[in-house]
């Protein structure tokens, strides 16, 4: 029997608060139609003072681990944490995640960074690991959050509605009940550029929007071309029932899809391309447009959206495009299993999104003062749980982890609520 490897379980945690972009447009004097039609955004998750990459990751991964039997849990032998919001130059956040999930100690733990590509680097490492050790499982978790420091500095206009908060956790094994990857079907493309940089936390200094958009497009074409050159008979227009893209905002995905259709297929007419977008890409955009860009987890939030909104009466092939600025990219594929939808339904992602506390504009702006305090290497502070009382009350009893304080030794203390 051919080895089956891929994603056994997947879950997303998308923060405790959100902002409707209509509220943002009204107060910023921006054109809401442009948000809806051009960027294609509806809401974004907003970071609260007690959220950080570790708490987000634990909250995404715990429901997956909680569903395992003790023996299955003990078979997790690798934990990979992907993020561009690292908290320490030495300690990997995978060690904190491993601790709060209560995993056994014969386990490889490390953190990966390559902008929004990092979780894909982690996923591919995990796939290769379980291929060599089929009885083991690996946990790959991406977690990133945006604090509004670029907004405060006034360097942000149409980026403000796009940047979100969230984490996606994936359990990788030889029992791929969600996504069975097509082994050795990978196209990659990367080169050096300076399209988006984080020289300091939460500041996208040096980012060049034009360069980043076009680099994304060049990489999309380059990685698909590489994939097609390796897989005999593969065709962009007909091989994939669905497509999921790294989604900084849905409008960008729409542009990329249209460009790739014109490049790789005979379909050139706008109305036909739109129809193909609605059918093959639309389901994967459903959650992304309600959360914003969650960086390295964005592609996997697209996958989660696809599983919840696609039609899987038969196993369906999906093409996945991952992009990370500066830049690395990969196009790969897999089969979404008929078991996927029922399995993911237990995670109740839509309910989770609906239950986020909806911020008023005054509440949203009041968080900026907290955002300013999140400097790299900061210690000796306790997080403000009551900054948005409604959001704090909303998560009580949900079994979620929140950051309580960072002591003078830089040890981070968390509590369950």
């Amino acid at each position, binding site marked *: 029997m051919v080895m089956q490897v891929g994603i056994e379980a997947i879950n997303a945690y998308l923060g405790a608060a959100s902002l409707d972009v209509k509220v943002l447009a009204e107060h910023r004097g921006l054109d809401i139609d442009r948000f809806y039609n*051009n*960027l294609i955004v509806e809401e974004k998750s907003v970071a609260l003072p007690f959220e950080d990459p570790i708490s987000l990751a634990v909250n995404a991964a715990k429901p997956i681990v909680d569903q395992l039997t003790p023996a299955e849990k003990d078979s997790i032998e690798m934990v990979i944490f992907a993020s561009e919001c690292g908290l320490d130059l030495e300690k990997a956040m995978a060690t904190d995640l491993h601790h709060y999930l209560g995993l056994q100690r014969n386990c490889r733990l490390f953190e990966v960074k390559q902008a929004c590509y990092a979780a894909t680097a982690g996923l591919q490492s995990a796939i290769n690991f379980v291929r060599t050790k089929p009885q083991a499982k690996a946990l790959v978790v991406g977690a990133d959050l945006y604090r509004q420091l670029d907004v405060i500095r006034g360097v942000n*206009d*149409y980026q403000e509605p796009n940047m979100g908060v969230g984490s996606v956790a994936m359990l990788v094994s030889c029992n791929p009940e969600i996504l069975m990857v097509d082994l050795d079907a990978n196209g990659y493309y990367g080169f050096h*550029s300076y399209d988006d940089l984080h020289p300091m936390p939460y500041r996208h200094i040096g980012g060049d*929007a*034009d*360069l980043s*958009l*076009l*680099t994304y*497009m*060049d990489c999309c074409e380059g990685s698909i071309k590489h994939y097609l050159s390796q897989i005999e008979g593969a065709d962009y227009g007909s091989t994939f029932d669905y497509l999921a893209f790294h989604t900084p905002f849905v*409008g*960008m995905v729409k*542009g990329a899809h*249209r*460009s790739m259709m*014109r*490049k790789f297929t005979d379909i050139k007419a706008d109305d036909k391309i739109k129809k193909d977008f609605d059918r093959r890409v639309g389901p994967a955009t459903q959650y992304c447009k309600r959360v914003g860009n969650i960086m390295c987890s964005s592609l996997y939030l697209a996958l989660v959206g696809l599983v919840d909104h696609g039609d899987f009466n038969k196993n369906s092939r999906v093409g996945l495009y991952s992009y990370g600025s500066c830049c690395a990219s990969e196009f790969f594929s897999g089969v979404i299993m008929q078991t996927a939808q029922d399995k993911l339904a237990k995670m109740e992602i839509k309910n989770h999104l609906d239950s986020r506390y909806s911020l008023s504009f005054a509440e949203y702006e009041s968080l900026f003062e907290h955002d300013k305090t999140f400097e790299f290497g900061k210690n000796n502070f306790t997080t403000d749980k009551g900054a948005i009382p409604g959001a704090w009350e909303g998560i009580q009893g949900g079994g979620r982890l929140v950051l309580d304080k960072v002591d003078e030794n830089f040890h981070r203390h968390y509590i369950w609520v």
Partner: protein
Amino acid sequence: MNNDDILTIVKSIIVKVSPQYAAVDIQPSDSLKDIGLNSIERMEITMLVMEELDVDVPRIELLGPKNISELVSLLESKLEKAGV
């Protein structure tokens, strides 16, 4: 295809992406940014112009030009190289 043909195509694509520019007298010395097109619209224009002219170059090479005239000259040189 000469400079004027390419300029006509660029102008028509600007209007296609953002119809309000139908009423604007766009000059070769204008830059896409200065006439008020945002980065997503600029990306769309760049991609559509490439598709229309069927030039196969990395898109990021088209970022250098400071105005429409320079963009047209660059596209013309790419078309010449490709022997179109």
